[in-house]
Each structure stands twice: as C-alpha cells, then as structure tokens.
C-alpha cells in the first residue's frame, strides 16, 4: 500500500546567458531559480496494482519514483509505503522494493553478471537456498542461462535490461519501480520484458509502478494511469475509461498526444 499526500519538491537551477561576458559575470553572481519538480502530489496505490506514470519529459515522473524509493527527500508532504516513510526508515523500506532505472545500470561493468548477483545476495542477506531458487526461476523466465557468465559490458541492451530486471528482483520485493524499462529496446526484447512484468504481477501479486513513453507498454500492462505534468497529477483513472472518452479507432499514441494537448503540457 502506497499513500502519498501533498508531496512537494523543488530544485535549484542556475541559468546564465551564452558567451564570455555572461560566463565571467557568473563567477561573481549566479542567477538562481527554483523549479517545482513536484507540486502537491497526492495519490494512493493498492497492493498488486500495476500503475503507469505518464507525462512528457521533465514532468516529474522520475522525481516521483526517486522519492518513493527513498533516494530523494521531498521538501514537504507525506509518503507512506507499507507503513514506512521511505527516507526516514530507508534500510527497512528498500528491502521491500526493487528499482530499475532504464537509463542506468546496477551491474558491475567488467565482471560476469553472476558476480553482481552474488554481491546483491550478500547485500540483501538472502539465504542461500532462497537465492538459488529465485535465481533459477528468474533465469528460466528471463532466459538468462547464457548471459550469467558474460561481463555486463559485452551484453546487448536488451540482454542487459533482462539482467537489470533480474537483479532488482533477487530479494523478492513486494513493490517494483520501473523507470522507463523498455527504453531503447528492440521489439522482441520489449515484448519479453512486458510479458515478464505481467507474469510477475499475476503470479506474485507484486505491485508495479511504471514510467514509460511507450504507449504500447501502457496498453499491454496497465489498467490504471497517472498523468503527471509540471509536477502535478492531472489525471488519475483507468486506462479503459480514458480510451472510451476518445472517438473509436484512436491509437494509444494519438490519445496520449491529445491528452498532453488537452492539459497543455
């Protein structure tokens, strides 16, 4: 159970004009502005839901995930996940969650994947039998057999992403955050990732919070979407109801564009 209420977070941004003169001036005085990354964000998510966070670049999707996973501390507001405040009870909280940042890597670059996994086993203090069972299961479903003994740097993006997902699930988290998990993947890899996520949710009742720009991901996975724009929640509802609002035959892509236009984001 995730409960978020009135969350605010702003960042400092330094700006200056182009050129030598402005750069020199910047040595003494920096123009500082605050960007509101999250504005009065409130929502709640039940166990076992799959929720898609959508919104244009810079809308605050990733910031939301970072706050929920305990990486960022918000300026104000409340957030409780399974009864815990992520940034206050960080260690207990992070045992319950898995996070995949599609644009980053948690695997050690130069050693075989299995070494990275073994380290995670130690970090999460997973009992050996538990670990072997989970690893076996993940290896089967994500087809990692041949990848485990290969260094991360020699894997293709699709292969690596499957390993990243497996890495986030070794400690069997109750909640999985996926920040653009299908970014840059080819069609086959995307399908594999989607199928896996769906299965995970159905079989283990894992709560999944997903950000994506890929409308196919949304259609395939989520029942509920949260539309975020300029740090605010603009829409919270079921995907089906949303599609029904638009004329018959509209593609998901067109619908998202229409949504962004409607909310001027």
């Amino acid at each position, binding site marked *: 159970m995730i409960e978020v209420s009135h969350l605010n977070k702003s960042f400092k941004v330094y700006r200056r004009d182009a050129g030598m003169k402005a750069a020199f001036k910047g040595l003494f005085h920096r123009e500082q502005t605050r960007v509101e990354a999250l504005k009065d964000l409130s929502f709640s998510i039940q166990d076992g839901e799959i929720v898609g966070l959508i919104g244009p670049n810079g809308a605050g999707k990733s910031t939301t995930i970072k706050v929920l996973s305990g*990486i*960022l501390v918000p300026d104000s507001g409340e957030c409780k996940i399974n009864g815990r405040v992520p940034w206050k009870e960080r260690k207990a909280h992070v045992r319950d969650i898995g996070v995949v*940042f599609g644009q*980053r890597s948690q695997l050690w670059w130069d050693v075989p994947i299995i070494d990275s996994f073994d380290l995670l086993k130690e970090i999460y203090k997973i009992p050996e039998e538990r670990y072997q069972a989970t690893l076996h299961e993940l290896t089967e479903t994500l087809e990692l057999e041949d990848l485990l003994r290969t260094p991360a740097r020699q894997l293709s993006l699709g292969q690596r992403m499957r390993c990243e997902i497996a890495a986030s699930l070794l400690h069997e988290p109750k909640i999985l955050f996926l920040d653009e998990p299908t970014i840059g993947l080819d069609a086959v890899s995307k399908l594999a990732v989607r199928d896996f996520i769906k299965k995970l949710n159905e079989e283990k009742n894992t709560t999944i919070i997903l950000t994506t720009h890929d409308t196919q991901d949304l259609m395939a996975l989520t029942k509920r979407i949260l539309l975020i724009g300029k740090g605010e929640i603009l829409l919270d509802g079921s995907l089906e109801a949303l599609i029904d609002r638009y004329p018959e035959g509209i593609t998901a892509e067109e619908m998202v564009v229409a949504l962004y236009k409607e909310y001027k984001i």
Partner: protein
Amino acid sequence: MRAALGMLRMRFIYSLQYRAAAWAGVMTQVFWGFMETLLYKAFYASNAAAFPMTLPQVTCYIWLRQAFFAMFILWSVDGDILDMIINGNVGYEIIRPTDLYWMWFTRNLGSRLSKVALRCGPVFLVAFLLPAPFGLSLPPNWVTFFAFLLSFVMAVLLIIGLCMWIYILSFYTIASRGVQSIVGLTAEFLSGSLLPIPFMPEGFQKVAYLLPFAQTQAVPYLMYSGYYSGREMVMNLGVQLFWLIVVIGSGHAVMKRALLKVTVQGG
C-alpha cells in the same frame, strides 16, 4: 558484515581483471626503489653522520613504500564512485539496505588490498634479495614488528577514511578534480612519501607529525626499522588512533547528512 565481505570480495575479483596494470606497477616500483636507494647511498657516502636516519633505515623505508605503494596513494580514488556521484547512478547505491559509508569503505579497502596483493610480492622478493645497505632488512625485534603491524593496520584504515572524504566532498561540488589535485599533492608530501619526514626541517616535522597524512605512511615505515622506541612508539600509535577516530567518525556523520540532501539528476 556479510554485505561488507561481499563487497570486499567483489572489488578483489574486479581488480584481478587488470593483470597488465599490475605487472607494469611491479616493474615501476622495483625500478624506482632501486634508483632511490642508489641515490641515498651516494648521499650517505659523502657524510653519513649528517643525516637523521641510518642508511638501512632509509632503504627499509623506501622498499616498504614501494611494496605498499598502491595502498597509500590518496588520489587513487575509485573513479566509478566519483562518476556515480556526478551522473546520479548513486541512486542505485541508496536503494540498498546497507550503510553506504561502510559499503564504500570496504569497496576501497578491497580495491587497494587487491592492488597491493598483486604487486607487493615481487617487490618484497627483490628487496629481500638485495645485499645489505640496498635491500630490506627484518625489524630489529618482535616488539618493533608488532608495533609496525598495528601501525600499518591503522594507517590502512586511515588512508581509506581520508579517501572517503574526497567522495563526500564530491557530493557538494560537482567537479572534484581541483580538490583532488591540490589536496593530493599536499597530502603526498606531508605523508612522507616523497621525502622521509625526518629529513624535513625540524619545525616542519612537528607540524607534519600532527597532521593525519604522516600517519598513513611515514609512521608505520619508521616504526618498522626501529626508528621509534618506548614512549615515542606509544605516542605515535596514540596520534594515529586519534586521527583514525576523528577522520572516520566525522566522515560517517557528514556523509549521512549529504545523502539526505543529495539531488540525483537526470533521467
């Protein structure tokens, strides 16, 4: 503890991947040590009485420094950690159920230990085989040897504590290269790695011994050759312990605060 051992192990296997670097390191250390002992031999030939240490003490100092070179270089920071702080991958470190300070501490310990493990063997072999004034001799007695061991262990922990401060400062300034190069050079000189501290002017020596840098190299090496005895030995171990507690204690506290203020940028 389990996580720390895991990290130590990971860093160890990680470094074992870089074999060529290890061999190059060994060659450099041996060659450099050889050149330097010859240099001091020439100085001592002119007037041995004019120097604060005996020639065997100096050669011991040089060979120990060469053997443990990779352990005590302050600027040999883990580039991956700095990159993580700068590009935001540090987010993945924060979502682990561990104390990040100790994770990075053991990670650095692991990488430094593995580098030394690969490099010190051949250096010691050469140093022990060299004839009397040039080579490495054994410590004068058991007490000295154990004092050296204790001092060495504290020095290892202290250098990593100092290294941790470089990472901590990087949380506050995006470009840490400047800090690294200024502090790195000063620290190297003050550690007695370029010139053994007893060779420095007296007033300077006093300051150098009070700062934490000398505690990372000069003190254990001087300990080994029996330069200190009795009260002096205990005093030096005390100063080392003091710095160890201060550097690690403050680093741990400040890092905790830094993590609450961290902004993970991008994507």
